[in-house]
């Protein structure tokens, strides 16, 4: 399995993403600069990591979403290639038009840095097959603009087509506004593209991959990817 992690000016979680990929797959990820116009040949999965690309100037992810490398990322996604955007990477995917909607300022206007409970909506996707459906994961969030918003038509399509990947939930898995820390519509924490090959999510699964630092609920996401590609 060949993976590539894209670095934009201001990305800061690329090494954590690469480390999670290494732990799950046993292989090193290529680090790709945003100014490049192509991905390494044979790339199976592209990760857009967290951080503050371009200092969040203009809008979070707006300038990175128009970087030279993004044409190659779009072409990869159009071919059915896997793309994972985490935190700022999710914002970039929305700004680039690979995913619908937008991540707005958190409802309470605060940067939120804490472990959140995430409900796995479905486990028949390339990103979640190592999880159980409805499983509750402990995954950290660290963002100021994670409030997912979309127009009513888009939201209905996401829900109707099963494109919600994760929701913020209570520890027992129930969906309760009190646990929706950023005000996202329908407590959405992550969404898929219609073909389920692009996933954008605000929480950081790459933070929870090593027992030395706590829970390892994030590791199965990266393991899921390697399972898909081994069976391909």
């Amino acid at each position, binding site marked *: 399995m060949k993976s590539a992690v894209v670095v934009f000016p201001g990305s800061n979680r690329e090494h954590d993403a690469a480390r999670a990929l290494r732990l799950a797959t046993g292989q090193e990820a290529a680090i790709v600069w945003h100014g490049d116009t192509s991905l390494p040949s044979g790339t199976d999965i592209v990760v857009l990591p967290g951080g503050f690309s371009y200092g969040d100037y*203009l809008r979070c992810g707006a300038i990175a979403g128009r970087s030279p490398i993004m044409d190659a990322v779009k072409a990869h996604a159009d071919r059915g290639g896997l793309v994972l955007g985490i935190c700022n990477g999710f914002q970039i995917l929305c700004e680039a038009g690979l995913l619908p909607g937008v991540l707005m300022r958190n*409802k*309470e206007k605060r940067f939120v840095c804490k472990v959140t409970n995430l409900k796995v909506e479905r486990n028949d996707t390339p990103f979640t097959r190592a999880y159980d459906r409805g499983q509750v994961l402990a995954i950290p969030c660290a963002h100021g603009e994670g409030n997912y918003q979309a127009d009513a038509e888009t939201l209905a399509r996401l829900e109707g087509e099963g494109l919600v990947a994760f929701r913020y939930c209570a520890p027992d898995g129930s969906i309760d506004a009190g646990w929706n820390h950023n005000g996202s519509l329908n407590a959405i924490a992550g969404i898929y593209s219609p073909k389920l090959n692009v996933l954008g999510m605000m929480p950081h699964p790459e933070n929870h991959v090593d027992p030395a630092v706590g829970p390892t609920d994030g590791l199965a996401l990266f393991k899921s990817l390697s399972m898909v590609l081994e069976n391909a």
Partner: protein
Amino acid sequence: MKARITVTLKPSVLDPQGKAIEGALGSLGFAGVGSVRQGKVFDIELSGSDRAAAETQLKAMSEKLLANTVVENYRVEILDNHA
């Protein structure tokens, strides 16, 4: 030629920053503030003097980068340049 693009949040979109500013104005004693919405202004200098071409270009800039039309509206103005 000078131009100004004003980007504002669509009325249906929650604006937490505007709300915070609204609260701050109230606490400073400014009475009667119904609501505040925060937006962005881009002042752009363009070469050339073709107004119609400039407007087309400014709209394209707005659509492609300056505004996220999922949640924002934009307005393009050509400012008369007497300088």
